[in-house]
């Protein structure tokens, strides 16, 4: 039975205090949620607990004894385990070798006992309801959900007395989430201290005993979860009431994009229309084929059969270049790896979609590019002093706005956005919603893929639910509900 205490922890980065004099205790046998926007200091706190960062001042106490956690190794020794957001897996190695990374069962000559390794892994996978997985399978072959489960298994294999989970359900389906929650309840009973970090407020209320709120690195209080209302929690996280998302439909009767019976490797016979000025949502579980549909429309994946008609003209895009020329833009899901050039400046990123257009002709005109970037910055409200700094120095929300700005410069008629608010804070989310609504009002058609159901319900005119590569159903605005979407998506 171990309790962990942060005692006046402060951590500063150049220009920002990430954690400001934080005092909080995590008790054995409780599930303690940590809530806050991105940039509130949650990940800094975690990084300090796992030895990736050192606090500038303050102490970490385990049962009242001071701990020095210099690196992830030390954290292991003290019984602190962390479930990362699929960060800590090595793709080319097997499930078993990942779960027991650096702790493989071995004899006294350091020779690994592979039999025992696989047997222990099988037991663990069984506990997690993953009996169908072979411990020798390389992680690269697993689905996103199963990878996350392996990540969880890796933490559990350490028999931690303190377990930290960072957005563990982001890529899990309902079924796996339920298994995870059952396991967490059991660990709580056994006296493990569980620290649960999540953007999903529903989960915080469903699961946790207490919740600690952080905002801009400052402690906003710890509450018994049953005593705090959702609105109150949000108010403390963002410091202002969030206005409800309700948009008037701006859809016209003119068909902009007509997708006729298209098929690809991961989806079959998909048909739908998007009208001018309309926002259509694509709901579904991760891996249902939504991203693949979007990529096919964009010409990034090959169309096997069917046709795509844009403004009454057949679109035959074999490469994104042709789709862009015809007025389609696609904002991909993985912002960092697919949407940005992380080592380049904000300006370079904004003008990258169309260099000739943004920078005035065949020869690159630096001052014109800069002006274009500055204009986009002001239009979309990107918080950045100047546009010369590296794009990675912006917050997640501002990075996403940079990606949007870049695609809007191509003047698209159809904008496809894939998980546009994934991993960005509540305030920035609402700004992105505002931008999307304005674009629809201007007459652009928007196809929005999202796993955030309230967001789809708030923003879309229609929602298509994709299940295992087919259209499982279409829901009109008056009938929107999370239950309805989920029942179509899961099954």
């Amino acid at each position: 039975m171990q309790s962990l205490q942060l005692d006046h922890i402060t951590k500063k980065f150049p220009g920002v205090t990430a954690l400001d004099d934080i005092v909080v205790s995590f008790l054995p046998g409780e599930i303690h949620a940590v809530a806050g926007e991105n940039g509130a200091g949650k990940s800094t706190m975690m990084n300090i607990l796992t030895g990736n960062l050192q606090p500038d001042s303050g102490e970490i106490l385990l049962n009242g004894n001071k701990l020095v956690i210099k690196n992830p190794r030390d954290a292991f020794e003290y019984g602190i385990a962390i479930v990362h957001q699929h960060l800590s897996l090595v793709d080319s190695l097997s499930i078993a070798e990942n779960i027991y990374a650096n702790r493989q069962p071995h004899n006294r000559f350091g020779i690994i006992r592979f039999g025992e390794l696989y047997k222990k892994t099988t037991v663990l996978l069984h506990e997690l309801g993953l009996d169908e997985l072979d411990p020798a399978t390389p992680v690269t072959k697993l689905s996103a959900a199963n990878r996350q489960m392996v990540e969880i298994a890796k933490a559990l294999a350490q028999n931690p007395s303190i377990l930290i989970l960072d957005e563990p359900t982001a890529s899990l389906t309902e079924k796996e989430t339920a298994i995870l929650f059952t396991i967490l309840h059991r660990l709580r009973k056994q006296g493990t201290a569980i620290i649960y970090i999540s953007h999903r407020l529903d989960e915080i209320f469903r699961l946790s005993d207490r919740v600690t709120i952080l905002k801009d690195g400052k402690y906003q209080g710890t509450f018994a979860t049953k005593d705090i209302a959702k609105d109150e929690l949000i108010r403390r996280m963002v410091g202002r009431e969030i206005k409800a998302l309700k948009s008037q439909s701006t859809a016209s009767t003119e068909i902009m994009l007509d997708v006729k019976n298209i098929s690809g490797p991961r989806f079959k016979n998909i048909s739908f229309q998007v009208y001018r000025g309309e926002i259509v949502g694509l709901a579904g579980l991760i891996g249902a084929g939504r991203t693949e549909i979007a990529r096919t429309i964009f010409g990034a994946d090959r169309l096997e059969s069917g046709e795509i008609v844009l403004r009454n003209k057949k679109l035959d895009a074999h490469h994104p270049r042709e789709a862009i020329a015809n007025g389609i833009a696609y904002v991909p899901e993985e912002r960092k790896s697919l949407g940005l050039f992380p080592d380049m400046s904000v300006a370079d990123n904004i003008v990258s979609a169309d260099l000739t257009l943004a920078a005035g002709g065949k020869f690159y005109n630096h001052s014109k590019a800069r002006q274009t970037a500055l204009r986009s910055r002001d239009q979309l409200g990107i918080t950045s002093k100047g546009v010369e700094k590296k794009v990675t120095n912006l917050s997640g929300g501002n990075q996403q706005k940079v990606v949007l700005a870049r695609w809007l410069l191509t003047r698209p008629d159809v904008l496809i956005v894939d998980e546009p608010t994934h991993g960005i804070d509540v305030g920035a989310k609402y700004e992105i919603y505002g931008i999307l609504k304005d674009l629809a009002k201007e007459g652009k058609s928007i196809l929005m893929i999202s796993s955030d159901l309230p967001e789809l319900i708030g923003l879309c005119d229609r929602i298509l639910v994709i299940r295992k590569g087919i259209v499982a159903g279409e829901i009109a605005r008056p009938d929107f509900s999370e239950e309805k979407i989920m029942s179509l998506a899961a099954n």
Partner: protein
Amino acid sequence: MLKKIIEDRVYSLLVLLTVVVVTAAFVFPATFPTFENFRQILLNLSIDTIVAVGMMILLVSGAFDLSVGSVVAFTGCLTAYLMHFYGIPVPVAITLGLTSALVVGFVNGYLIAYMGINPMIQTLAMMGIVRGFALMVSGSGIQNLPYWFNAIGQSKLLGIQMPVWYMLLTVGIFTFLLNKVVAFRQFYYIGGNERAADLSGIRVKRVKMAGFIISAMLAGLAGILLSSRLGAALPTMGRGLELRVITAVILGGASLSGGLGKIPGALLGALFMGIIANIMVISRISGYWQEIILGVILIGTLWLDKYLQKRYSGST
């Protein structure tokens, strides 16, 4: 089984080698499939393969070392220099020679792992520095090495020259280590995903540095064997060896991005190159063609690999 052959380069290369060897045996029944010819092929590739084992470890960990060819020359020359000019006993000279290789590996590893210098640039610079030292100690070359020193590389066991046995021993030992031993498995974690390895509690920097030290030590061993076999130490030994070895290791299944490859792959890659070169000599193809054909084979193998992976990975 088919899946295994496609996915594991060690198996696909074995199949390919068998096809090549059987074909060559039919086409050149008098000259190719003889004990003498195979003994010669193995002897010719023994030095390269010992270096390739170290290179494979580095590529698994996501790095590579261009200075190995120079280390081969320098270690051989330094050992010869100590014995020839100072009369230092053979075992002591060899120990000092290997120590010098260790120092080179340590400097490479320390600067790359701890100071964050790019491996390509660090080892490229070291390649020049060490070659310079080799020239400095040996001048135009050192001959008349002690009898016992020459015996290391020139004697035979079961009719096969010793370097071949050293090569097989090295391959055997490191195959076991990289497959089964905790400390060596870490190379796969680091090459597969360095950040993930760090979060798993692996001492990434230390292990990376160890990779460079092992690679340099094996190059040192190869240098000593080579000068012993030649009965002389030349400052030009091992020129171009680094690229040959990297080619063999990539053929053997390593990837420049790390995390992939097995030690037997290093041997098979070198063997494949050795046999192709041998067949070309037997069939009297000009030396110019050899380089061209080897380059084409390397690209062809990687292309075929990509093609097969793409074609068959959809079914899993």
